[in-house]
């Protein structure tokens, strides 16, 4: 998976490159905004990690040029600017996600994988967590290596959770995905489906856990 890393601090870039390579990315490093813009014009990357504080220009300029060319490659911004203004600016100018320095390498990898799993991406049609795998095209679930039959709605809930594994999926978002936006859903309908799915997963020995966060939503994580 080809990744462009734009980061002016050479040592940091080197370290990140090693870490990302270990996570399976093929990393190209550019140290300046000019080089990055040139690389982006001439090559196709699956994802871009962009530092905002570059010596020759602001990282947001690089991003702006990409989006102007209608280059929809997902971009994750790295920033030392922690304040919200900067964050909002980043997201409004077309970034897909951001991380404030310092961050855990695992967090970066997880965010990148989440971006690549997004609908509309060719990659990540198979969502994996723990010992389960969901084929989003074939609508099939494997637990261990065994195909298990789940209902269409259970698969729909599981897909939503797996797409944002490790993060909270709001309850109303789940409801919208199960029933479509037009239908009014009884507030406990989602709870019923999640409860059934949780029970079903436990029965077939899946090593994942669906956490309920009352009043917030649900989160799926690997069972520890």
């Amino acid at each position: 998976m080809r990744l462009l890393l734009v980061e002016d601090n050479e040592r940091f870039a080197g370290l990140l490159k090693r870490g990302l390579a270990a996570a399976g990315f093929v990393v190209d490093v550019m140290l300046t905004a000019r080089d990055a813009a040139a690389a982006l014009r001439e090559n196709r990357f699956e994802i871009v990690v962009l530092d905002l504080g570059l010596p020759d220009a602001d990282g947001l300029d690089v991003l702006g040029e990409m989006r102007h060319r209608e280059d929809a490659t997902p971009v994750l911004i790295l920033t030392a600017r922690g304040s919200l203004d900067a964050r909002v600016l980043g997201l409004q100018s077309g970034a897909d996600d951001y991380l404030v320095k310092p961050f855990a390498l695992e967090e970066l990898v997880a965010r990148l994988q989440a971006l690549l799993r997004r609908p509309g991406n060719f990659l990540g049609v198979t969502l994996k967590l723990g010992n389960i795998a969901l084929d989003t095209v074939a609508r099939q679930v494997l637990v261990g290596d065994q195909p298990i039959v789940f209902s269409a709605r259970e698969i729909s809930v599981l897909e939503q959770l797996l797409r944002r594994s490790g993060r909270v999926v709001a309850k109303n978002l789940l409801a919208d995905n199960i029933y479509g936006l037009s239908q009014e859903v009884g507030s406990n309908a989602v709870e019923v489906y999640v409860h059934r799915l949780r029970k079903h997963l436990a029965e077939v020995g899946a090593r994942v856990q669906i956490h309920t966060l009352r009043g917030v939503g649900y989160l799926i994580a690997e069972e520890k």
Partner: protein
Amino acid sequence: MLKFRSVVSRIIALHLLAIVVTSICMPLALYMMLNYAAQELHHRALRERAAEILRYLDRGPDGAPRLSLPAALAQFYSEAYGRAAYAVLDASGNALFSSLAGGGAIIRVRPQATPFEYFALHRGDTGLVGVTVAADIGGPPLLLQVSEDLEHRDVLIDDIVAEFFTRVGWITAPILLLLLVIDVLIFRRALRPIVAASALAERIGPARTELRLPEEGMPQEVVPLVNAVNQALDRLEEGFRGQREFTADAAHELRTPLAILRTQIDTIADRELASSLRDDIESMSRLVNQLLDIAELETFVIGEDEIADLAAIATEIATYIAPLALAQRKTVAVTGADHPVLVCGNADTLGRAVRNLVENALSHTAPGTTVEISVVAEGELSVMDRGPGVPSAEREQIFRRFWRRDRRRAGNAGLGLAIVKRIVEMHGAAIGVADRPGGGAIFSIRFPAVIEADPAPAHQFETTL
């Protein structure tokens, strides 16, 4: 002794004193002057009468004095008419001619008396005034006395003097009072720029250091003070900005090395060592973030029309923090966030306050417990935990910067709650700590008022975190 602190009240007090003194002294002085002027007029009239009589006084061929008054004049001085009298005396005071019935002097004169003298006499309840002048017609000196009855004196002049107090004298006080009112209005007007400048100065604070007092329209006497204050503000602003920028720059500059360190630690094979180093980096990063937060909040100004939805904030923060809570085998919950609860304020900074409260709660609770964010429709947001609670003696101190119950405990600089307090106060809201029924602590942020929600969904107020 009375102390008047305001310039206007000082002016009023002194002015009133001046009015009292002036309204007593000025009519008195005027009265005396009028009296004097009236007397002068009378004296002149007497002298003129004496001169008139003198024109008809001469000496006959035998050297004896003769007085031949025309009939009209004699009639005027007649006893029957009674208003005036004359007498011509020789040097020893014997009357030669007199209009009086007894034919004597009007007033007895001492020998060698001053040849020119005014006199006043009282007879019963009437009085008369007169003058004695030397009548120089050659020969031995003669004296001429002319008098006028006070009762029948020129009425007009006396009336003016007598009625001065009742008719004219009282006008002084009202005129002076009117002047005082005008003066006060003038002073008020002159002081208006100072009042306006004071209102402006009240708005100067850490978040608004660029404001300066206006020189325009200031009374000239105050301009040097205004200039000096503005220059002092310039110096303060410069120092303040330097301090602020340094904090912000330092925090920024620290983040990149921390990021390098953090990433490098991820490559360490010794998991135990890596984990302990990671904890250190975490707490240092948190400190840097908090310092940056503080530096940013110092200059933060909430927009007048900003609206935040407490329900959305509670949900956002719970969503954001849930993975962290679950990693510690704890959980977060939100209640009361089904409907928007709108307050005036900045959603981002309020979110940071709530996040700090939740992080604080998580750091004080045991695995298996829930941290609950509760939103009340009346404009209150509470974070409740099942930790040890906050002893009542510490409920003020915990919001102080760098306050920690246990200084040995690492990973907490004691800034989180200070930041919360600052954000809450910035919003004109109040924060309080209480015991939670059944154990634990409740941190509540109470807003003075809520904005009635439109029936339309409030998703546009959601925060981005």
